[in-house]
């Protein structure tokens, strides 16, 4: 696919669809769209369009196809894996203007929203009635549902309630030729006929089409939520506490862990009164009916103590509870207090292996001469090692990236995954071939090709290619037409 058109020439036809104000071609304005939350990679798009309706999205897609332009969809640009990184000369279709909550149907416990709706805004809209939207990525006050759908985003409370894919009932999708298809449920009815396409589109990282409406499930707020805060001498004891709690059959709504370095950063950046002289802390929510929460919280405390907790606190009121969670959710941003730059990874390990894996990560960090802070979803084994570095020091950024890669390999060695919720994107495409075989990736590519045979949507993501991964691709996935001899790759 080539993008031969000059940026100037792209303006008029797209502006005819979305309007002058919503067509961006000036180099200074395009800079905003050069990257997402993975700021180390930047590519200038050919044009950025901000459509307001499904019809406008479809028209933009048809136009892009007629001009043979790659299409990169974008939500709020908070992604951490480079999923919205533009492809040279592409059209970025930004969904930020499509931010309407179209319908709320509390009896059927659904909401129909546009992709640009901010995650937390759903809960803000229905919270007063006693309902909420469960998936809660730490960026939930700024990230969009469309982006969550692309990445199958998780969050602290996904431990009990599942990820975005478990809360999306239906989707409206614009395909590569501008056709609009409806996937899954429309009215909240279960068991839509045929393949679970909505289940496949969620987490497909913008490579199957552009989602323009989402029917989400909303949940009734539980009778009670009890938060527990426990400190430990080191991550060994904290990891052991997690294993004990999960092993005992307790399903908390969330269990989050912070190590000493993460605590230091969070305390410096927020007003939490967490102790600095501990090795790790766990922040945990237990929710459900009142009687259930009381009993479960008590059992959990027994396990925390048995694992060697130094101190266990329960917030005295809702404000204190919110503050603790605010501290946790501000963790990534807080890293600025202790390091000029950081590089976050998102590997997953079996949850009983937390302690040994954290020890290996610490050893790798020491060997690389870099500090690694850990703040993560301990309950489901989803690590977030934050490799701290200073980009002004020559070689440190590259060393941080290398260390990040080594950490992912440790996760794979323990039988885990390179990403639990941030997505593969651009960042981890070259590691996917270490998690999956050539045949596995070829099968996934068949799924993609069923939606987008020309591979126009978000090219150069997820799948390792020689161009992305240099001389050692290992797992280049040919197009079905190539394997059949119908086409050759130039």
């Amino acid at each position: 696919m080539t993008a031969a058109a000059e940026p100037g020439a792209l303006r008029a036809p797209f502006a005819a669809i979305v309007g002058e104000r919503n067509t961006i071609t000036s180099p200074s304005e395009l800079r905003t769209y050069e990257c997402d939350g993975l700021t180390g990679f930047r590519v200038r798009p050919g044009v950025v369009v901000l459509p307001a309706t499904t019809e406008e999205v479809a028209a933009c897609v048809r136009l892009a196809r007629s001009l043979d332009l790659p299409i990169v969809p974008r939500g709020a640009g908070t992604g951490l894996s480079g999923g919205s990184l533009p492809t040279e000369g592409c059209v970025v279709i930004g969904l930020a203007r499509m931010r309407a909550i179209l319908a709320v149907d509390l009896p059927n416990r659904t909401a129909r929203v546009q992709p640009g709706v901010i995650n937390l805004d759903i809960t803000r809209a229905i919270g007063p009635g006693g309902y909420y939207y469960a998936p809660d990525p730490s960026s939930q006050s700024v990230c969009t549902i469309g982006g969550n759908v692309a990445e199958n985003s998780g969050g602290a409370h996904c431990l009990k309630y599942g990820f975005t894919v478990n809360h999306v009932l239906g989707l409206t999708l614009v395909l590569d030729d501008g056709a609009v298809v409806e996937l899954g449920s429309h009215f909240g009815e279960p068991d839509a006929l045929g393949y679970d396409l909505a289940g496949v589109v969620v987490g497909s990282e913008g490579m199957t089409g552009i989602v323009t409406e989402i029917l989400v499930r909303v949940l009734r707020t539980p009778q009670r939520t009890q938060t527990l805060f426990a400190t430990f001498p080191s991550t060994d004891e904290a990891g052991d506490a997690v294993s004990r709690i999960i092993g005992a059959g307790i399903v908390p709504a969330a269990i989050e862990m912070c190590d000493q370095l993460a605590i230091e950063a969070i305390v410096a950046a927020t007003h939490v009164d967490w102790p600095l002289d501990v090795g790790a802390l766990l922040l945990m929510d237990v929710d459900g009916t009142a009687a259930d929460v009381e009993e479960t919280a008590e059992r959990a405390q027994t396990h925390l103590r048995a694992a060697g907790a130094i101190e266990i606190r329960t917030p005295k009121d809702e404000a204190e509870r919110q503050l603790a969670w605010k501290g946790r959710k501000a963790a990534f941003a807080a890293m600025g207090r202790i390091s000029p730059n950081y590089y976050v990874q998102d590997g997953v390990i079996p949850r009983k292996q937390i302690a040994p894996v954290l020890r290996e990560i610490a050893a790798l960090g020491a060997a690389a001469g870099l500090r690694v802070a850990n703040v993560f979803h301990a309950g489901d084994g989803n690590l977030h090692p934050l490799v701290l570095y200073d980009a002004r020091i020559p070689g440190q950024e590259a060393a941080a990236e290398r260390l990040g890669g080594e950490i992912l390999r440790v996760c794979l060695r323990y039988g885990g995954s390179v990403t639990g919720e941030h997505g593969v994107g651009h960042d981890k495409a070259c590691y996917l071939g270490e998690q999956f075989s050539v045949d596995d990736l070829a099968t996934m590519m068949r799924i993609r090709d069923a939606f987008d045979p020309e591979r126009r949507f978000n090219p150069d993501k997820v799948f390792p290619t020689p161009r992305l991964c240099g001389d050692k691709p290992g797992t280049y996935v040919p197009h079905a037409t190539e394997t059949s001899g119908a086409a050759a790759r130039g």
Partner: protein
Amino acid sequence: MNEPVAIAGVAATEIVTPRDLAELAEIVRDRYARGSSFAFVGGGTQLDLGNAPSQLDTIVRTAALDRVIDYTPEDQTITVECGITLAALDRMLAENGQMLPLDSGARERATVGGAIATNVSGRHRRRYGTAKDMIVGVAIVRPDGTPSRGGGKVVKNVAGFDLPKLMVGSLGTLGAIATVTLRVYPAPQGTAFVSGAYEDDDGLVARDVAALDAALVRDRLEPVAVWATRRPDGRYRVTVEFAGSRVAVDAQCRACEALIAEFGVSVRTADAAEGEDETRARFAAAPRIRIGFPPASLAQFDDLMQPLIDGETALGAYPGVGVAYLRPSPAVDYRRLLEAVRKREEMTAVVEAMPPDWHGIDAWGNPPRALRVMRALKTSFDPRGLCSPGRYVAGL
């Protein structure tokens, strides 16, 4: 065990039973290369699901593929071969105080692979969801014989396209499910069932059943299941199941009893689900229709049904989930019934068990709205159309 010889009434010319996963792949590769059509059969409990295959040379039975590959109770995950029965899995999980809350009426015969391929579910989906919410990894054999994997062994994982979700409910049309990794759950300490309108002369109209369901949600009770069975007079009896610690279950039962009593019907709480076996037996044989409707629409669904069914028709509904199972009596005009439901865009009607004399009925109904992508997927996985052809929606 009876040897299955036919799928939806179509007999195969051969039945093969691979001894291991390598042989499964080898058989599929060989038949595909030869242009011979094939389909997979687990416990054979749902052979009447779907339309008749348009071709069927070989039935591949998964009965011998019943090994446990990896079970780590501390991680609450288990990886098994497709042919293991749900009952065998239950027994192993129970030893560790765990369970797989995937309901199926025939656990001694039904296999894990079959349960996922057919996306079976039952009353516990209210709390635990369906196979989609439990599957975290899969290894398949593509129709061309190529083994491939998706997902993984950890409970949280977004690496690569979601092949596991795609296989759920795909009815063997995209290849064989060879192994699956499932998230399993702690078994509750206790269970109790609150029944309403259990007396023979008692009953709740559908609107009241829906109102009760709404009240359970309003009061933030957390039943693991709610179901209502229709009596010959058109009214319903209702059962609400709670699970968890003794004290938590008791508290919820008291609250639920009070809610039911407000409707002026009989209420009692028991340790076992009353009439469960009887209900299951009524729905075991063909014809069986599964109807889907928005979870809060039981009353609207009932309004639609009342003029179309009679007192001999068995009907069990799951308010709050939006599923009902129907066994129409011989007197019912099933064609009219299916048409009436399929006209409603917010409802679906699938004939889960088709009697041999229901000629010209499509098991699935109207083609799905995204049929175009489904066709492309089928072609992408099975370009020669040899893998369970014709059995799935819209002839896929």
